[in-house]
């Protein structure tokens, strides 16, 4: 962190990065106070895409809120479906058949890979490289077709239901998925050669945008941002849910805490998700995909329930306060990017604009999830 000349005669000017700016991936505005190109103070301004999902939750029945969860973070919509469905199942005490749990895990991991691929393309685009975006989207397109074949939608899936999934996966999804996994295994080395080992990119990412574990703890950062600073916290391993204990996969953690560490965490996570999918396909049991007796009008008993899920950007938590009627009394959606972004103001002190964009890209923000 270089020392800024802090004398009051310092001539700084305010630059508005956003809300309409190529590097903010959505309508996020960052008010930068600059001294030349060095950031004296950065203040993200939110609320440009605030839709008040939590109020919608309060006047919709449990089933009717399902499409909203996909609109929170449309890049890993299935994880958000999963979080909401698990929370309501925990509240209402609904069991889920084994096959449905496996299908959920496989599709959520697929969604994580598609989210990381889009992040990879967009991040290198922010750093100036145009081509890797197209390669990443090429892989992602195959994946979206696979998920569209099963769920019917490409981005905002509404695939999970309380007690199972909407419809079963068919054989050409399984064969297509096996083909995709094999192909992805050959594409990952190509990304590492083209992007990770590239000296220009390494100079852009290494030792840029340090985030200390203490900063993560103070701001509640989770997901790849925390794992990039040496914190071994992954909800799939920390609070095991669904059938994740059945799978053998490891959690990539890089202690350095710079943008390159967060980059490598996500690249390794793609590899781990492929492993999970393979194990999931091998152990996929047969049987029903929907629990038998799921009440049409769901009325979970009175009380306060919480369920956390590992989305692509971190721990997505749903706090459900139910008063016994068929609409939730209070529905709090704890989104990971909200906390991840809150540490940007402190982490971007003294950086250059180009490095601040490298830092912001490494946080992998999705703005509608922050504003809710």
């Amino acid at each position, binding site marked *: 962190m270089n020392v800024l000349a802090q004398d009051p005669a310092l001539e700084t000017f305010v630059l508005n990065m956003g809300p309409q700016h190529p590097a903010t991936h959505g309508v996020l505005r960052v008010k930068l106070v600059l001294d030349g190109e060095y950031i004296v103070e950065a203040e993200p301004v939110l*609320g440009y895409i605030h839709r008040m999902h939590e109020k919608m939750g309060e006047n919709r029945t449990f089933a009717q809120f399902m499409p909203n969860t996909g609109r929170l973070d449309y890049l890993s919509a299935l994880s958000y479906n999963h979080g909401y469905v698990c929370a309501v199942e*925990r509240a209402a005490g609904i069991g889920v058949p084994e096959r449905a749990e496996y299908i959920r895990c496989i599709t959520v991991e697929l969604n994580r890979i598609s989210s990381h691929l889009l992040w990879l393309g967009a991040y290198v685009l922010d750093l100036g490289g145009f081509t890797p975006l197209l390669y990443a989207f090429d892989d992602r397109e195959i994946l979206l077709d696979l998920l569209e074949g099963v769920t019917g939608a490409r981005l905002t899936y509404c695939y999970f239901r309380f007690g199972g999934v909407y419809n079963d996966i068919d054989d050409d999804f399984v064969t297509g998925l096996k083909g995709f996994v094999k192909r992805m295994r050959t594409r990952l080395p190509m990304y590492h050669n083209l992007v990770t080992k590239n000296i220009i990119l390494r100079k852009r990412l290494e030792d840029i945008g340090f985030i200390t574990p203490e900063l993560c*703890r103070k*701001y*509640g950062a989770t997901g790849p941002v925390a794992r990039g600073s040496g914190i071994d916290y992954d909800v799939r391993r920390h609070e095991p849910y669904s059938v994740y204990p059945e799978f053998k996969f490891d959690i990539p953690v890089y202690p350095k805490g710079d943008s390159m560490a967060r980059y490598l965490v996500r690249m390794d996570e793609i590899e781990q998700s492929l492993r999970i999918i393979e194990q999931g396909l091998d152990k996929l049991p047969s049987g029903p995909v929907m629990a038998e007796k799921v009440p049409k009008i769901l009325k979970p008993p009175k009380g306060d*329930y*919480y369920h956390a899920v590992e989305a692509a950007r971190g721990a997505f*938590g749903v706090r459900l306060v139910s008063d016994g009627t068929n609409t939730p009394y209070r529905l*709090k959606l704890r989104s990971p990017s909200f906390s991840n972004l809150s540490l940007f103001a402190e982490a971007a002190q003294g950086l250059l604009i180009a490095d601040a964009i490298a830092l912001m890209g490494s946080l992998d923000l999705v703005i509608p999830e922050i504003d809710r």
Partner: protein
Amino acid sequence: MKANALKQAMAKVSSAKISEAPYAAKGFHLEISVAPAEVAAAAAVLDREGFFIEAVTGVDWLGEQAAAEKAAKAAAAAAAKKAAASGEAAPAEPAPAVAPAIPAEDQFEVVYDFNHYEALCRVTMRVRVVRSTPEVPTISEIYPGANWHERETHDFFGIVFTGHPDLSPLLLPEDADFHPLRKDFQA
């Protein structure tokens, strides 16, 4: 285990009442209810124990007082009827003590969620605040992450976090004076 360590540490905060919660059914391990004045002290204890802030939010318990009174009257009537049915047994026995103390006025509940990176222990801290003057001291000095959470709770519920550096609307437009998540909010 982290939960026990936290219990000893929390003993210092006088008004903190800790209770275990069934994780499988509820999703959190410990529930702490604290008086508004000691929120900062409790947060400091949690900070020393290495917890990270997950979320801060509010719940508007409008109409809870009316419901509690109705329940208490119904319970008293039932007790009296039962007493009459069982042949005038001592009707003078007080209403069943199990009914919670009826709150003087409807309340907001501010819910703080903490979690721990290494140990599996999610703590939910609840603070009850009177609806007419909802004042809770801020914990943004201890947990800077709570700064935005508190601004958002202020946006939605109008709960004032005293000592907060900048309580301007975070998600709502700058000139918003309405609080959408209050139960008596009319669009």
